[in-house]
């Protein structure tokens, strides 16, 4: 039986981070992962991450995955792929299925970083081919380069449902509707807004009542639900779709910890049955740690910090790391983790009804119910101001721990301050150069550059654009409003795409001056179907 200082189960963001931190301290580390490739879900994440510089904000998930792998390689972490850990027993012994054999390994310490599995809801026809998990959609399109479907309905308005809907459109699929039984959108408003402005209708307080089709999905029926989440007869709506994508949350995959005898608890805010852990992830069995989604559903950014914490603790447990050094590392990591767990979407605020921002501004009801901020709500937010000459308009309305826009502006036009969750505001003293770095740096794609005095009767709006085909300079089309409705004719006057924008193109469109506060997306005229009419 082979023996290691540390065995890590799962080579996702938390497992790799744990292994890196422990290997740095001199431990012999092996990581087992059942998949063909390491990185967990990171390589399917093609959007820019939220957070601060320290949390790798504005870097896309797959790029973070590459950086982690390179780091793991550098410090000598061994990653064993296609190996499924199937058991965990007394005295930190595990059984691993490798090809068709079962082998035993022993770790002097163990970190479980197995992540989470998707939840599912059942409805008539839910087993038909064409009903897929949102994770399956990401796997098919972002890892394997095949479209999950042509016309898709998304169920679930959490960040996964919102982000995957946007990704589906990026690879050329049509998203016909986004549906959620809850009365308000669960994920970040900025994620919802970028889906809504493409013309996708949101149906809150609705659920799927039937997937239609004999051998595979050919349509879907949704119904409005009452206060008890029961479908209301007579409210049915039908959509022709070939795919139904389900994004209704995640559950920790904590079976190994339970099997080993770790004390468990049912914790709805953490997503289900999770191990009881201390502040750094140690379970009730000393030397056995849990990190990442397995101990509570959160984001990859916090999973990486939790992994590093568990790695340092394992090193200290085995005597590789002095107590003072451990405490120094942990205090820095705790601070980072705490800064990510702030704001409206913090784990401690889950399930709470928040109607005002930290600044005391009323939240947009329209954003929560339809996915976009209404015209009569938008000017409440400190990032939305009028000014002569070119200037940024920041449609950021929720307290999220994220601040890349502040650093992106070399002229200090954008102020967030020390508190990362504060809404960005405009510094009236500073002068915008129109460089566009803030537009490209905003992970929520909520920043626009506006120039109101461009030419008599016209204004320009610069917006982030991550679709193909890229419009040409001089191309004419229509501008869409925040709600995704056609609001006026528009002409592309500039397209910018530099490496610093990291695959986000900046389109500048000319619109009639009265539309400057409304026009937020561009639709080329040859593609304009009745969906945008």
């Amino acid at each position: 039986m082979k023996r290691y200082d540390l065995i890590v189960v799962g080579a996702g963001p938390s497992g790799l981070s744990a292994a890196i931190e422990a290997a740095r301290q001199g431990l012999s580390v092996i990581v087992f992962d059942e998949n063909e490739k390491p990185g967990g879900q990171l390589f399917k994440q093609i959007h820019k991450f939220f957070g601060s510089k320290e949390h790798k904000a504005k870097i896309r998930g797959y790029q973070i995955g590459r950086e982690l792998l390179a780091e793991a390689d550098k410090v000598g972490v061994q990653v064993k792929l296609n190996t499924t850990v199937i058991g965990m027993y007394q005295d930190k012994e595990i059984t691993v299925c490798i090809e068709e054999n079962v082998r035993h390994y022993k770790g002097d310490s163990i970190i479980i970083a197995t992540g989470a599995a998707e939840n599912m809801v059942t409805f008539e026809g839910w087993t038909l081919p064409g009903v897929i998990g949102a994770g399956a959609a990401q796997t098919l399109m972002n890892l394997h380069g095949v479209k999950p479907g042509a016309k898709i309905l998304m169920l679930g308005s959490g960040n996964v449902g919102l982000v995957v809907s946007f990704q589906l459109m990026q690879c050329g699929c049509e998203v016909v509707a986004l549906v959620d039984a809850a009365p308000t959108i669960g994920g970040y408003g900025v994620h919802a807004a970028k889906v809504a402005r493409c013309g996708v209708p949101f149906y809150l307080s609705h659920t799927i009542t039937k997937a239609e089709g004999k051998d595979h999905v050919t349509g879907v029926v949704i119904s409005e639900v009452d206060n008890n989440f029961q479908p209301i007869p007579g409210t049915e709506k039908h959509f022709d779709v070939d795919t139904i994508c389900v994004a209704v949350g995640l559950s920790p995959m904590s079976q190994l910890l339970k099997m080993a005898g770790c004390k468990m608890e049912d914790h709805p805010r953490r997503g289900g049955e999770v191990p009881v852990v201390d502040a750094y992830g140690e379970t009730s069995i000393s030397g056995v740690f849990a990190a990442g989604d397995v101990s509570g559903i959160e984001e990859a950014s916090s999973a990486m910090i939790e992994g590093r914490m568990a790695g340092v603790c394992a090193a200290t447990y085995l005597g590789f790391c002095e107590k003072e050094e451990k405490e120094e590392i942990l205090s820095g990591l705790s601070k980072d983790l705490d800064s990510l767990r702030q704001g409206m979407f913090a784990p401690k605020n889950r399930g709470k009804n928040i109607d005002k921002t930290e600044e005391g501004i009323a939240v947009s009801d329209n954003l929560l119910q339809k996915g976009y901020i209404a015209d009569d709500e938008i000017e409440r937010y400190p990032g939305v101001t009028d000014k002569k000459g070119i200037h940024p308009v920041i449609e950021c309305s929720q307290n999220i721990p994220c601040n890349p826009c502040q650093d992106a502006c070399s002229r200090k036009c954008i102020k967030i301050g020390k508190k990362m969750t504060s809404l960005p505001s405009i510094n009236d003293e500073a002068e915008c150069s129109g460089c566009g770095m803030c537009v490209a740096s905003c992970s929520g794609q909520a920043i626009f550059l506006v120039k109101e005095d461009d030419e008599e009767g016209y204004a320009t709006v610069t917006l982030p654009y991550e679709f193909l085909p890229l419009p040409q300079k001089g191309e004419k089309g229509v501008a869409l409003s925040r709600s995704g409705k056609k609001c006026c004719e528009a002409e592309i006057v500039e397209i910018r795409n530099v490496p610093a924008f990291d695959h986000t193109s900046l389109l500048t469109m000319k619109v009639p001056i009265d539309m400057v506060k409304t026009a937020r997306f561009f639709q080329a005229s040859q593609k304009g179907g009745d969906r945008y009419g």
Partner: protein
Amino acid sequence: MERIREHPILGEPEKGKTVKFTFDGKEIEGYEGEPIAVALKAAGVMVHRYTKKEHKPRGIFCAIGRCTDCVMVVDGKPNIRTCVTPLAEGMKVQTQYAVSAKEDHVS
């Protein structure tokens, strides 16, 4: 379903060489090393198997080897998770009925 030729963020998908395999006797092309399920999806195949008791169709569901909805008979062996099994030249892929490639095993 269509393959993505060019992606605004990811560029052109990196694929292995083209290989030929059969699905229920029909020759199909796919890329070496990609999951069998992806090659089938690109060829428009939706149904991977029929359940034993009720003869209900099943296809890709989780795409990460967890749910076992997409299992098929591959080179004569049943219950192969096609979403995590790499495609190879000359593979014989068959719709699975219960645990067999023969339709009459479903009753």
